[in-house]
């Protein structure tokens, strides 16, 4: 059993060599197409990291009515923390507000007015690990419904623009990824079909000597998987080159640098092998009756 399995695996490798020209052409075409996917994936991952940093900077300030005490404000802050999408809410007491005022303007409010007219407030930060589009408005609306909240200040327009661009980028990269992946599957499917056609003498000989369908099909599936793996590794190398070149040019204009992510690379290789297996399996099922 084990010897047969190893023999079939070896046959898969040998088939690659026997059909080296068409296999090379196919692997090259696939790897060029897939390198864009890896490049997009790595850049997307890097962009997501930047978005995360940006999201961690998003904050809004909630001002409570000046007539409520700090303890009442603290209770409202507890309510705000419970809102979905809120990471933290820190109370700024009337006293702390006066100290901030003094730090920024150099004047003591008690000296000027004999009282502290500043309201207590809180600074709200958001959960930056949101997978989908981040929308601040539902959170703001919920905060506004809390009793004694007088004003909510935030950079709504800026957040909306950042999120819109991020979503656009994400959608385009996903779209390209799906199209190229589909194209890759067709390429592998077609390569296996051509291989089956060119190996029809072997298939006939195998069937005549009593090979089961599984025995005949297995090497072709191995071949497809290896093709996918080699193409993925090549695509990764190309993408690595793109990124190095991109970083070289980016360094001229910005301090931004695309970071190479090995995790994304290995996930991609795994995905490619899986899709190659599916494509070759479909091809042998269709063309090897």
């Amino acid at each position, binding site marked *: 059993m084990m*010897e047969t399995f190893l*023999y079939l695996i070896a046959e898969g490798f040998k088939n690659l060599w*026997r059909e080296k020209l068409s296999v090379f052409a196919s692997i090259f075409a696939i790897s060029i197409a897939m390198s864009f996917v890896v490049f997009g994936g790595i850049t997307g991952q890097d962009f997501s990291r930047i978005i995360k940093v940006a999201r961690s900077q998003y904050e809004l300030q909630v001002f409570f009515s000046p007539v409520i005490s700090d303890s009442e404000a603290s209770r409202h802050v507890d309510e705000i923390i419970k809102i979905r999408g809120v990471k933290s809410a820190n109370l700024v007491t009337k006293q702390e507000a006066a100290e901030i005022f003094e730090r920024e303007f150099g004047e003591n409010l008690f000296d000027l007015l004999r009282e502290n007219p500043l309201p207590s407030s809180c600074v709200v930060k958001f959960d930056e690990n949101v997978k989908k589009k981040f929308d601040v408005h539902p959170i703001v609306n919920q905060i506004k419904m809390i009793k004694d909240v007088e004003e909510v200040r935030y950079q709504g327009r800026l957040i909306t623009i950042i999120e819109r661009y991020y979503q656009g980028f994400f959608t385009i990269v996903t779209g390209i990824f799906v199209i190229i992946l589909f194209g890759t599957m067709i390429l592998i499917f077609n390569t296996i079909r051509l291989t089956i056609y060119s190996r029809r003498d072997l298939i006939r*000989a195998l069937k*005549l000597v*009593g090979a089961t369908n599984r*025995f005949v099909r297995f090497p072709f599936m191995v071949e497809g998987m290896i093709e996918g793996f080699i193409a993925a590794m090549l695509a990764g190398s190309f993408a690595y080159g793109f990124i190095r070149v991109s970083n070289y040019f980016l360094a001229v204009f910005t301090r931004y640098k695309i970071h190479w992510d090995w995790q994304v690379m290995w996930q991609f290789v795994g995905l490619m092998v899986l899709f190659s297996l599916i494509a070759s399996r479909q091809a042998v099922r269709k063309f090897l009756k």
Partner: protein
Amino acid sequence: MIWFDNVTCTFVKGAGLFDATFEIEKGEFVFVIGPTGAGKTILLKLVYMEIFPEKGKVVVDKYNSSKIKQRQIPLLRRKVGMVFQEFELLSDRNVFENIALPLRVRGEKKREIKSKVYHVLDELDISNKASHYPSELSGGEQQIVSLARAIVKDPIVILADEPTGNLDPVSSFKILTLLEQINKEGTAVIMASHNYNLIKDRGHRFIEVVDGRVSG
């Protein structure tokens, strides 16, 4: 061992085999003769169940064409050795690998494969050709390799479809002698041929196929 029971199997324009009924015993040597296009190849294809009868049934060993399941066909073919006019050898594998193919399909161990292949190579006197590729062999030698591939799996019957069709008279005679030698060891042989001069006076049974009708 092989039984054709009122078998009809047609191709386009009425060509094929019609109402064929005959039996071939274990260890028998049978020549299937007839002109080109008479239905000899169809008869052989029915035995290894590449095609199936529209009417009647073909029984080979315990396999019945009307009951056999798709997954049982490879098991039947492991018991049937085949030799073709065009040799059907794999050009990218050497003689050893070509002969070893049926044993690999059966999942035999490397050591067993080596021993069986070399035994057959010795028997057919082509041990010195083990590492040669088909393109490096003469037609006669290629057919001997094809024969070696057929017998290495120890079949119950060898089907030879015009095995001497592409060979010179000397090679043809050698192949026929080898088939007879194999038959003497107990393997049935069914050899289709239209070279009557070669096969007459060999003392074996004849089945004649003319226009799809079987006699003999």
